[in-house]
């Protein structure tokens, strides 16, 4: 995008004033290089979001943004239900509550390197990943509804997780207000055999090394030290979330029309929060969130099982579990007053600063861990939420590196085999059923994650705590 089309507020804040149908400004957080490299569609989509009824303050865009559906990926927008605000299925996306969890292993890099190859093979064979893989769990109707209502708490009760994990998961592992009865039979059928599966695309399980510490005090609170080994899992609500997203997108198109809402893009299909469809979507979407929380808890349990095989005394402790495709009711300060808002984050991470009441006691004094996934070759980051983030973007930050190149273009540039061999020579083992899938996820197809997190830090969204480098990456 041409930065000249924005008002430059400061080196990492770019603004488009509200004109035409826009109800609020659009604000993009990025440095000049990142914004220049973004597709023009990001601007168009941020402006479109700013036209939706009941939007509060601004349509925000995170530094890792790229062209999405309706909302840009990296889009954040809050709506006030009592001022005509809407909930948008497109604003949450197809993979409801897709997110990341990071677990401390208590092991060092040198421990992992000793068994790196066999650990990679074992994780690859024990973690169902990709199309055609089958999970070991089949849910009957009763268990499906219990899972959709109970989230990670349900998984823990069934023995697929640890009770101590729950306080380290957003919503304490269970999203309130879930309505399994609002989830279609089709969506439930699609999920029946998918619990404990990783999925494909940009989803992964990684064993990582803490490569660099930026803030030793907060790293200490998080339990991170240089050369520690970690496990990070990125996945979401699998087929169930996809089906809910698909079905409500269609229904909300008609609802928006009926409510007289002019949609600049059909993918922004939405419904007034105070409407039957809006409430039904929220109930189903929250059930989708629980599905994702349960799924990541089960995958974490599987990872523990594999680690216990190699390291009988290992104790994988959850650092935190965050979601980045959600709509959540949160209290935020707007013009000096606290208001309950429906905050949509589409490819953006919640980033509560120090003192937030929802954080567990052990983390409350420093703020929420913000887990930012990079590419399989470059690394990831652990950030911490900043107090300034609330005023900047309703306590939100980036969620990943963000794609710089389409899958299509990546496939023309790289071969999966060459990537696997190249990374192996650098000590990173990739395991995937598809070399084409690896090529589509080539490290070079992503933005510079270092630049993204620095921009997030300079913009006051979240602060760097640690950089992680991959040792093993399991791709679906």
């Amino acid at each position, binding site marked *: 995008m041409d930065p000249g089309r924005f008002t430059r507020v400061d080196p990492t804040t770019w603004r488009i004033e509200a004109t035409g149908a826009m109800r609020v400004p659009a604000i993009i957080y990025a440095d000049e290089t990142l914004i220049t490299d973004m597709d023009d569609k990001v601007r168009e989509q941020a402006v479109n979001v700013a036209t939706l009824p009941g939007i509060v303050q601004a349509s925000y865009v995170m530094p890792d943004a790229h062209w999405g559906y309706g909302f840009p990926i990296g889009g954040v927008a809050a709506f006030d239900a009592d001022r005509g605000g809407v909930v948008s299925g497109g604003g949450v996306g197809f993979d409801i509550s897709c997110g990341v969890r990071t677990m401390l292993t208590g092991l060092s890099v040198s421990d992992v390197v000793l068994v790196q190859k066999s650990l990679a093979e074992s994780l690859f064979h024990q973690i169902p990943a990709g199309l055609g893989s089958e999970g070991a769990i089949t849910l009957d109707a009763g268990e499906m509804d219990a899972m959709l209502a109970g989230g990670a708490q349900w998984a823990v009760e069934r023995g697929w997780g640890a009770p101590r994990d729950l306080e380290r998961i957003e919503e304490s592992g269970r999203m309130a207000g879930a309505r399994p009865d609002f989830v279609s039979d089709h969506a439930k059928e699609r999920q029946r055999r998918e619990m404990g599966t990783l999925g494909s695309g940009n989803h992964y399980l990684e064993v990582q090394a803490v490569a660099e510490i930026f803030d030793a005090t907060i790293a200490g609170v998080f339990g991170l030290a240089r050369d520690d080994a970690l496990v990070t899992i990125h996945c979401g609500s699998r087929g169930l979330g996809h089906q809910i997203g698909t079905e409500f997108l269609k229904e909300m198109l008609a609802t928006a029309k009926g409510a007289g809402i002019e949609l600049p893009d059909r993918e922004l299909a939405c419904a007034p929060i105070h409407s039957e469809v809006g409430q039904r979507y929220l109930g189903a979407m929250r059930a989708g969130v629980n599905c994702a929380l349960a799924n990541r808890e089960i995958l974490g349990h599987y990872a523990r099982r594999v680690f216990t095989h190699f390291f009988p005394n290992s104790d994988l402790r959850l650092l935190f579990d965050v979601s980045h495709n959600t709509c959540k009711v949160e209290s935020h300060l707007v013009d000096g007053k606290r208001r309950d808002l429906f905050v949509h984050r589409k490819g953006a991470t919640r980033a509560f600063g120090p003192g937030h009441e929802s954080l567990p006691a052990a983390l409350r004094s420093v703020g929420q861990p913000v887990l930012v996934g990079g590419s399989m070759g470059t690394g990831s980051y652990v950030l911490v939420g900043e107090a300034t983030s609330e005023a900047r973007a309703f306590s939100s930050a980036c969620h990943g590196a963000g794609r710089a190149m389409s899958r299509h273009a990546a496939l023309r540039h790289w071969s999966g085999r060459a990537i696997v061999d190249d990374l192996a020579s650098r000590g990173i083992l990739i395991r995937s059923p*598809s070399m084409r899938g690896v090529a589509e996820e*080539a490290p070079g197809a992503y933005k510079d994650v270092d630049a993204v997190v620095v921009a997030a830090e300079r913009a006051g969204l979240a602060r760097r705590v640690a950089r992680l480098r991959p040792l093993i990456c399991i791709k679906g």
Partner: protein
Amino acid sequence: MALNCSAPPIERRGDWEHFPHGADVGLRGRGATPAQAFEAAARALTAVVTDAPVEPRDGVPVICEAPDLELLFVEWLNAIIYEMAVRNMLFGRFAVRIEGARLVGTLWGERVDVARHAPACEPKGATYTELKVAKEADGAWSAACVVDV
């Protein structure tokens, strides 16, 4: 990392093509009728997942309805994605009949064989992004949208 410029381009194969989208994949089918364009787009959907041949061993009937041709196209792709997911199948042959707002189709395919099909990704849903079903200047119909993977 070395570039592999010999990798085969996947843009266009006969009556379908893939086009780029930020993180996902756009697909377009062409044919003499909307039904043929829908069938070609379905082949493009399968090609998002695998380059390997898919044997037409079993047939699965699908029926979709939508208020207009564009929304019917999204319904059609989503019906295929649904059947892929719940049956753990890939489909390689398609037959479509469109009667007003209603589509009656058959998908022929086989169970996913991970070793042989090496699925590159798993489509999540067809979107309204870049959605267009139209008769082009040369008289052929095209049907296109972006699929979230």
